[in-house]
């Protein structure tokens, strides 16, 4: 089995994975990072999103080997020194989750959005979230968290 070196949440991690093993499987089952969720395995729901070089990417299909040499950040890696990120704080302030299954993907998508622009347009917000499904209907609260972040700049 090939050995890969992945840069995850600021640390180099060596893992053994078959060439077709999706990144999500490696994160969850080898590195114990279960924040990113398996929702569909089809790149349809967004629950598996992680940051790759600062951009939100789905991890349930693309092989882990494609991510060598890239900077991967999972939802577990957003808080720094025990302090939640602005996006995480905004989600809490706006109660932007119910069951929470889709939430890590949403937090990652919104984090990626604000890495590109401090004041994203409505169109950019919709585009950033268009791959993300939520069944509890937290959309309006998530958009409120986005608005809070835009206000805070």
């Amino acid at each position, binding site marked *: 089995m090939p050995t890969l070196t992945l840069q995850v949440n600021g640390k180099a991690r060596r893992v053994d994975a078959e060439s077709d093993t999706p990144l999500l499987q490696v994160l969850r089952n080898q590195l114990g*990072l279960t*924040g990113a969720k398996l*929702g569909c395995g089809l790149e349809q729901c967004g*629950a598996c999103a992680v940051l790759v070089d600062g951009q939100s990417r789905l991890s349930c299909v693309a092989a882990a080997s494609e991510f060598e040499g890239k900077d991967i950040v999972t939802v577990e890696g957003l808080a720094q020194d025990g302090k939640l990120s602005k996006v995480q704080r905004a*989600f809490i302030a706006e109660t932007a989750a119910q*069951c929470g299954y889709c939430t890590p993907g949403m937090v990652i998508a919104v984090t990626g959005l604000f890495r590109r622009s401090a004041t994203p347009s409505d169109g950019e917000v919709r585009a950033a979230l268009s791959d993300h499904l*939520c069944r509890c209907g937290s959309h309006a609260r998530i958009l409120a968290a986005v608005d809070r972040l835009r206000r805070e700049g």
Partner: protein
Amino acid sequence: MAENPSLTKNPQLDSWIAITSDGTVRVRMGKVDIGQKISSAVSRLAAEELDVAPGRIVMIRPDTIDGPDEGMTSGSNSMEESGNAVRLASATARAVLLAKASVALGVEVDELDIDDGTITARSTNSSTTYWDLQGDQAFGVPIDIAARIKPAAARKLVGKPAAPLDLEDIVTGRHVFVNDMSMEGMVHARPVRPPHALARLEDVDDTVLKKLAGDGFTVVRDGSFLAVAGADEFQVIKAARVLFNAARWTSGPKLDNRDIYEQLTTNARMSMPVVDGLPVLDTPVPPPLTPPADAKASLSARYERAYIMHGSIGPSAGLAVAQGDTLEIWTHSQGIYLLRTSLAELLGMPAGNLRIHHRPGSGCYGHNGADDAAVDAAFVARAMPGVPVLLKWTREDEHAWEPYSPAMVMDLSGAIASDGSITAWNHESHSDTHVMRPRPGVAGLGPSRLLPARYLANPPAVIPPPPNMTHHGGIHRNLEPLYRIAEPRLVKHLVRDLPHRTSALRTLGAFANVYALEAFLDELAEAAGEDPVQLRLRHLDDPRARACIEAVASRIGPLSEAPEGYGRGIGFAQYKNAKAYAAVAVELTVDGNDRVRLKRAVIAGDAGQIVDPMGFTAQLEGGFIQSASWTIHEAVTHDPDGITSRDWDSYPIIGFDNIPEIETVLLDQPDEPFLGAGEAVCGPTGAAIVNAVARATGVRPRRLPLTPDNLRAAALSA
């Protein structure tokens, strides 16, 4: 107050509350948190009555080992059952602790103050604490159902906004769902289902079985039940596909592919009148009421709603370990005691040998695949003694095998009499059952409702579901109008021989019944030339119902004055005519591609005394968005070879591109009892959207979902 089944069944204080010596209050309840934040609301009730800081309350996840058995978490009953039980338990504990403090400090109870669990005598300034008086000791007393509850004016926490429990864990990825669990030596498993519900397994290619065994996989087969387990999850996913392709399935009977609405109105059925919210057995259905000859308006209309699914974002999962003659399960089931009883009966085990723990799952909104996945895991675990088995359904399993909410047909007719009153009201609802949870009952009833059991070599006989005879039960939930209508003729048809397994989804029959009756009211108003808001208000006596409607009507603006190209619509109901009241108004347009685009929504809810305003808002807004998705987008489809809604492309749901601006108005009643809030908004949402589409387009659609195809068909037949 009506009898509380949670207290009747679990009368001892120690079942609910424990004071620890290290300064916490451990609260157990039997209802499970499924994202509705019931544990947040209940923890605040406990903190309030006990006068402790909210952070001292530790909510213990339910299991079948100890703690109260509160049956099923469903029907918007949790605040009334768990909420009131924990409130009374907390008040009882407070009284016991005050009495003990009175002895310890040598002063009367009424000279004592409590601050965060410290009890101080006003006269002497001496003090003691809950933790010193009671730490780690049993109370040994029953809950006092007459215990004094704080009056509204004295409450410090209840009704005030607070972040829900677990939210920090959720946004940091620390919240552990069943799907995320891990144990030493654990294997992963996947079920391998037939191509469709009627297909059965003939055999599996032996060379493939040998190859899988050689590669370290365990294949479990019993009749047509097939599953595969192994150490690496991704390899198991691939092995499950290999196994499916290596299996030969019978090509016996196929799924009935005739028009589902034709099946609903022509198949064999049990029909019964419904009077005062209750079906009446063995009574002929009376003939339809006929409108008076001088009626101002008289109409009849048929409304249809497709099969829809729970559509949990996380596929169902279960973790099980078989050890000797015991079986331990971790599940996101809504009814762990009922699952235990049914599974014990199926396996011929004493129920006490089965230990079931609730752990979080993806939002389920009713009876999804949770119980079935737990049983799948148990079957695999029994074949691998001592090995923890984490079994997950795939996305395709979840879409194709969860029990759906049944398609429904609602036939309405009625009139506006010459004096302006609604009269000659007929409402007949045709549907499969909404209640197929694995409840115990006659022998085999519970087991036969566990999907994997149906595929065993010796399956329990599938027993046709009896009609739900409870007040505002399944098909007849909200069949009875809340409006002042003299002697409406209401009929429930429990239709047989339909193609899909069905069970409880948020609101059961109420969504479709409210959508139909509230759409029909608009049609009647239009036929009589009256404003639909006024027609409703003229037939409602309950001031709380009227307040909800007035709150949304005043904020959305006159229905007839929507901006050019837009339509406004309204819907209202009191859930089960007994729970929370909700009114919804929407403003929307239908674009050039016949797609419904939501612009603005106003929601008003009255759930009695509000404990957790954030939780109530989330239930109203979330229920609105989910129901908008059902209304606009959702229909389970099939062909003779099986379900064709197998992923999010073939079963689309609402996305961020169609979320309106939402204004939510909470109508608090601090001196009134709690009314369950989780389902109230769904029916009114469907009605408001349909009514707004009719006003926006001039065409009234009567078949859900409001997809471009269905809207075009409605326009062609108008």
